[in-house]
C-alpha cells in the first residue's frame, strides 16, 4: 500500500510540474466545449427560400407564413431554375394546373430539403382547410346555424421535460463529449507516461526493487483517478455554470461514471502503450482506438446503424459511459438506472487491469 501510494504521489508530482500537459488536460476540454456550444447553437435556425412560378396567391401566402420560410416569385421556370443554380433559392415550386404542382429541390443540404417538404405540405393543407372553412361559413350562414369553426381559437402551452426552447443539439451531445475528453486525455497521458517509464529504463529499475507488478498498476490508477476527478469537476462546472447546460440527474452520478471511465481509459492506455515503441507510435493508436469510440458513442444514433455495427459498439467502453451520462444529464436517471452501464465499465476495467498486471511479466518474471 505504501508503495502504491508512493507511485501515485510520484506520478502526480511529475504531472504537476509539466505545465503544458496540465493545460492540455484541464483547459483544452473547456475551449473545445465552448467552441462546440457556439457552433451548434448557431446551427439551430435554418431558413429557406422557395422560388414560385405561377403559384396561386393563397398557397404562396400560406407558404410564406411558415416560420423561417420566405418566397420569391419568378415569371417562368427557367428563370427560377437559374436562381436555384446560383444558390439564391433552395427550391422551385411550379403550378402546372389547379391541382398539380412540381417541385425541384436544390438538395445540397438534406435538412433544408426536409424543411421545404414539410413547409409545402403545411401550406397546401392550410390552403385546403382555409377554403373548407370559407365554404362552411357561407353554408352555415345560409342555414342560420352557428359555425363550429368560428370560435376555434386553439391555445397550445409548450412545456419542456428537459431544458427550455433554447436547448440546442449541443445539450444532447454534451454528455458524450464530457466522457470523450476524460477518455482521450487520460488514455493518452497515462499511456505515454508508462511508455516513457519503459523507454527511459525507470520501469526496469522499478522492477529491480521488490515492488509488486500490481502495485505499479494500482499506483497509476490512484493518481489518474484523482486527475480524472479534477478534470470532470472542471468540465461539469463549466458546462453547467458557463454554458448553462441543464443536468437533470445527480452530479455525483456523473462523477462516478467519469471516474470509472477514466480508470478504464487508464488501463486501456497502459495496455496499448506496451504495443508502442515511441510516443509517435502511441499517437498512431488514436485513430484506431479513440475515433471509433466517438463514432459509436451515440453521437450518431446507434439504432439507425446496421446490426453488426451496433455489436461493434457494444465492445467499446465509451458507449456505456455515454449512455449512462446521457441518461443522467438528459433524463435524470437515478443510480439504479446506471448500474448496468457501470457494471459493463467495471468488467472492462477488471479485464484490462488483469491484462496489465500479467503483461508486466514481460519485464520481470516474478
Amino acid at each position, binding site marked *: 500500500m*505504501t*508503495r502504491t501510494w*508512493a507511485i501515485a504521489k*510520484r506520478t502526480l*508530482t*511529475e504531472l504537476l*510540474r*509539466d505545465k503544458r500537459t496540465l493545460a492540455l488536460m484541464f483547459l483544452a476540454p473547456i475551449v473545445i466545449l465552448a467552441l462546440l456550444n457556439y457552433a451548434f447553437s448557431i446551427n439551430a435556425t435554418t431558413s429557406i427560400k422557395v422560388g414560385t412560378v405561377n403559384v396561386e396567391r393563397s398557397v404562396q401566402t400560406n407558404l410564406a407564413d411558415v416560420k423561417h420560410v420566405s418566397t420569391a416569385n419568378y415569371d417562368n421556370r427557367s428563370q427560377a431554375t437559374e436562381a436555384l443554380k446560383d444558390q439564391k433559392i433552395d427550391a422551385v415550386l411550379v403550378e402546372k394546373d389547379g391541382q398539380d404542382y412540381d417541385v425541384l429541390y436544390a438538395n445540397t443540404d438534406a435538412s433544408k430539403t426536409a424543411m421545404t417538404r414539410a413547409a409545402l405540405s403545411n401550406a397546401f393543407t392550410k390552403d385546403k382547410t382555409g377554403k373548407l372553412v370559407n365554404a362552411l361559413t357561407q353554408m352555415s350562414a345560409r342555414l342560420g346555424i352557428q359555425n363550429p369553426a368560428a370560435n376555434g381559437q386553439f391555445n397550445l402551452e409548450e412545456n419542456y421535460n428537459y431544458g427550455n426552447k433554447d436547448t440546442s443539439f449541443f445539450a444532447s451531445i454534451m454528455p458524450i463529449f464530457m466522457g470523450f475528453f476524460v477518455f482521450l486525455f487520460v488514455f493518452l497521458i497515462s499511456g505515454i507516461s508508462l511508455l516513457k517509464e519503459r523507454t*527511459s*529504463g*525507470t520501469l*526496469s*529499475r*522499478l*522492477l*529491480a*526493487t*521488490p*515492488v*509488486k507488478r500490481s502495485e505499479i498498476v494500482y499506483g497509476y490508477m490512484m493518481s489518474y483517478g484523482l486527475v480524472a476527478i479534477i478534470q470532470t469537476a472542471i468540465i461539469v462546472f463549466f458546462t453547467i455554470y458557463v454554458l448553462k447546460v441543464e443536468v437533470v440527474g445527480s452530479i455525483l452520478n456523473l462523477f462516478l461514471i467519469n471516474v470509472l471511465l477514466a480508470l478504464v481509459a487508464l488501463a486501456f492506455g497502459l495496455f496499448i502503450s506496451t504495443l508502442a515503441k515511441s510516443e509517435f507510435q502511441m499517437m498512431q493508436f488514436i485513430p484506431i482506438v479513440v475515433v471509433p469510440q466517438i463514432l459509436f458513442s451515440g453521437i450518431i444514433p446507434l439504432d439507425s446503424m446496421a446490426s453488426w455495427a451496433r455489436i461493434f459498439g457494444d465492445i467499446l467502453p465509451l458507449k456505456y459511459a455515454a449512455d449512462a451520462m446521457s441518461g443522467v444529464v438528459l433524463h435524470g436517471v437515478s443510480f439504479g438506472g446506471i448500474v448496468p452501464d457501470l457494471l459493463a465499465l467495471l468488467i472492462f476495467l477488471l479485464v484490462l487491469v488483469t491484462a496489465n498486471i500479467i503483461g508486466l511479466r514481460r*519485464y*520481470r*518474471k*516474478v
Partner: protein
Amino acid sequence: MTYTIELQQVAKSFGNQKVLKDIDLNLKQGEILGLIGPSGAGKSTVINIALGVEQADSGQANILNQTMPNRQLLAEIGYMAQSDALYEALTAYENVAFFAEMKGINKQGLDQEIKRVADIVSLGDALYKNVAGFSGGMKRRLSLAIALIGNPRLLVLDEPTVGIDPALRRQIWHELHKMRDAGHAILVTTHVMDEAELVDRVALLLGGRIIANDAPKKLEAAYGVPTIEDVFLKAEEEESND
C-alpha cells in the same frame, strides 16, 4: 561455501540466437567481480538472469542461497542499469527517496541515508535540483547513488563510471573498495579496461561463454601480457581463430 551470486550452467536464447551457453559464475561476500566482454556478448543478460528479470532456459541462478526469480530478495540488491533511468521532472532527492520507498527502506533515518549516498557520489549540492538540468555525468552519479541506498549486501553495477570525470571515478572506486572491505559483494560490468585492474577477479565473457575467470594479475601472467586490455584482445583473437 555460500556465494552471494551463484550461476550454474545457465543458458539463454532469444529466438534463434544463443546468447549464453553454459555459464558458471560465482561471487563471494567481500569480493568485486568484473564482468568484461565486447558489446553484445551477453553481459546484460547475465545480470538480468541474476536479478530474475529474465528466466534462464536451463541451469540455475541463486542469490544469497535462494533461487531467482525471487521478488523479496530484490530488496537486498542495489542495481544500476546501463541507462540512467531517472525521473527527469523530479529532484535528485525525490528520485532517491522514491526508489528507497520502493525498496521498502524505513522512513526513519531515510533523510540521513539519502545524504550519505549523495555524498559518496559528490551530489550533495545538487540534491534539491531537478534532474532535467543535470549533466550526463551527474545523472550517472545519481543513478549510482540510488543503487547504493540502503547499503545493500549485493551491488550490481552495469557500466557505472561511463561519462564520469577521472577524479570522481577514482573516488567512486575508493568507495566500492571500502564497501567490499565491509563485506559487500559487487558485480561490475565495464568497458574501461584500466578499471578492470581494480577488481578482485575478472570474468571474460566471449561468444556466450566465460573464457577466463581469475584475478587480473594472474590473467595477465597466464596470457603473458602486461594489461587486462591485452588479455582481452588476445582472448578475442584466440576465440576468432578457433
